[in-house]
């Protein structure tokens, strides 16, 4: 008993001492060392990988082995952090100065936010940025903030229109719809001729973007500091979605577990089309209607609206924590992991889309049919607003979309509300 009391008292006293001398402003870290010869660099690089621990993680760990073989003095501490927790976990650790990794696999939508908060090391002129001219321009832009490079693109993705070829054929179509108007027509024909549903919608703000981009709209206009979510173009885009739901072209979407329910319907052959990204390929091909007949599975670019075909750019960048004690080793690690050879290997094994042009033609990558399958949809990828507040823009729109899909509101008032919410987030931006 007494021992417990004293140890608790000691802990408390220690805690008091700490509160007295600091409020978590973090330690200052060491100044970046003068760049040494790569072979001489030593240290331990902790990498937080947010990829799927069961399917993707092992491939990255293989590449790490190659890295450690090339740089024997550098050790890599691989930690898989579930994607859903990663953003909060990194920010909590980064602001305190203790516990943050050296390198983080960062969603393209997080880079500007982290960089604006001082959490990331600028990478221009370091070994981390290697042969930058090889990068595809749209993914590469996601790593830049205020003119500096903070992220090196790891993989890229976008949304495409996935379809069940047999169901479309039954409805009388050999080709997937290329425009939003065709999308509705095909969906309704599938519904009336096959008994299956036409289109499955995922009630999530990100998945609204192809419709909004198609009409020339967007969340915001970064250059003019304008909120454009309630502009006539954006309204026109969301109206297409509203019409798809009310006309019955899209099956009544689930709001909770919306993604899973839509995917399940598509995999079971209950609907003919869905918007989704390359990450879902394996999942889809395991589904009832594709398992024994993979040729039944079709991938096409998102249908075009009245202005263009556009879908949001996704993917991940490598970023280096500014407070890292192993900056030089981290730069080399990023360089190696983002190299064309590593990317080709990942592309070949996992079908994740490379961010470097040469990786697309590497034999290792072309061996995976998925790479070619997604090259066309990738051409429609649209840059998202790379601003620190970007991640906050989804929630108000998700809530609005849920109300719209639930039939409690219509497009215009919904987007007006969202725009009002955006004004609270983006101080000083005009409508």
């Amino acid at each position, binding site marked *: *008993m007494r021992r417990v009391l004293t140890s608790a008292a000691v802990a408390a006293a220690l805690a008091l001492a700490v*509160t007295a001398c600091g409020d978590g402003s973090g330690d200052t870290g060491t100044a970046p060392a003068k760049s040494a010869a790569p072979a001489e660099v030593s240290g331990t690089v902790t990498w937080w990988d947010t990829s799927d621990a069961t399917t993707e993680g092992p491939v990255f760990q293989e590449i790490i082995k190659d890295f450690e073989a090339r740089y024997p003095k550098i050790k890599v*501490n691989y930690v*898989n952090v579930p994607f859903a927790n990663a953003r909060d976990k990194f920010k909590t650790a980064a602001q*305190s100065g203790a*516990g943050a990794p050296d390198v983080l696999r960062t969603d393209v939508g997080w880079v500007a936010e982290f960089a604006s908060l001082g959490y990331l090391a600028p990478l221009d002129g370091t070994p981390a940025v290697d042969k930058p001219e090889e990068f595809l321009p749209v993914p590469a832009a996601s790593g830049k903030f205020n003119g500096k490079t903070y992220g090196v693109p790891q993989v890229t993705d976008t949304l495409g229109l996935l379809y069940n070829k047999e169901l479309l054929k039954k409805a009388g179509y050999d080709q997937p719809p290329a425009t939003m108007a065709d999308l509705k027509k095909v969906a309704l024909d599938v519904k009336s001729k096959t008994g299956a549903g036409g289109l499955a919608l995922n009630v999530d703000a990100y998945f609204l973007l192809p419709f909004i981009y198609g009409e020339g709209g967007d969340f915001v206009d970064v250059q003019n500091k304008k909120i454009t979510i309630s502009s006539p173009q954006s309204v026109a885009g969301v109206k297409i979605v509203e019409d798809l739901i009310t006309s019955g072209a899209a099956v009544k979407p689930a709001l909770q*577990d919306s993604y*899973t329910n839509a995917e399940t319907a598509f995999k079971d052959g209950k609907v003919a089309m869905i918007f989704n990204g390359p990450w879902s390929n394996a999942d889809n091909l395991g589904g009832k209607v594709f398992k024994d007949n993979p040729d039944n599975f079709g991938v096409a670019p998102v249908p075009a609206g009245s202005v263009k075909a556009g879908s949001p750019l996704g993917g991940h960048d490598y970023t280096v924590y500014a407070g890292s004690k192993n900056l030089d080793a981290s730069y080399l690690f990023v360089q190696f992991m983002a190299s064309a050879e590593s990317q080709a290997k990942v592309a070949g094994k996992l079908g994740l889309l490379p961010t470097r042009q040469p990786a697309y033609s590497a034999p290792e990558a072309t061996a995976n049919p998925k790479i070619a399958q997604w090259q066309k949809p990738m051409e429609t990828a649209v840059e998202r607003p790379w601003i620190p507040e970007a991640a906050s823009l989804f929630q108000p729109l998700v809530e609005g979309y849920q109300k719209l899909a639930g039939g409690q509101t219509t497009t215009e008032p919904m987007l007006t509300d969202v725009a009002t919410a955006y004004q609270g987030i983006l101080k000083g931006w005009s409508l």
Partner: protein
Amino acid sequence: MVSPAAPAGAWSRDRRSPGRSIALHLTLIAASIVSVFPVAWLVLTSLKPRTVIETASVAPIDHPTLANYTQVLGETRFLTWAANAVIVSLITAVLGVLLSATTGYAVSRFRFPGFRSVMWMLLITQMFPVAILIVPIYNLMAGLGLINQFPSLVIAYLTSTVPFCAWMMKGYFDTVPVTIDEAGRVDGLTPFGTFWRLILPLAKPGLAVAAFYSFITAWAEVAYATAFMTGDDKYTLAVGLSQFVGQHKAEWGLLTASSVLIAIPAAVVFLLVQRHLVTGLTAGATKA
């Protein structure tokens, strides 16, 4: 309170009519079904292959398989995470019981200056939303060098378990007759001695509940554990298994299997304690 009695309805058993008896059992059976069904469905689902789970099939049993379990147990660091969780939960339970028993005893027996403040403190601590405390507590732990160390979790969990357990222990000590304390003092025991030798052994049921509550809280906690444990060799079970919720998919099969695996130890601890709790309560009641 001083003379707790056997179940209040005991004396009327022989007068219960068969009809009322059936109604009683039917009500309890219905309630038990509601209480057990969700858990049972979880177990049944975990035994289905993923191809079945991810369809609209709702047959209770469909191609039963242990594949989900073998994948969870074989392809993750399940045993490390389970061991971590056991260590953290056990330390939390032991420390939590000791701290809340002493505090509960003090506020049950003594009227000392600061008594009301302590009672309010225990209450207010439970009122402040944990979600908002995480960042300041993280910074405290970082200052102590405890990030990615189990003590940080134990300390954080104690702040949420001890206030409740101390309240509950106070209530329990209130039912232990003061005459026992007085007898101890007559025998020349110090207040600590009285507490340690006489009161604590009598308070086993209360201690059992405190231990169970502390264990369960620590066992299932995710928010602190996610923030504080930065290496995957230090993950607790609840954090480690959240890896099955990927960015774009939920592995229902692995999730259900791991949920069952997380719930089993908690249920086992409960069963152990529950037996103790029941006998303890009844014994205490009849003895007094």
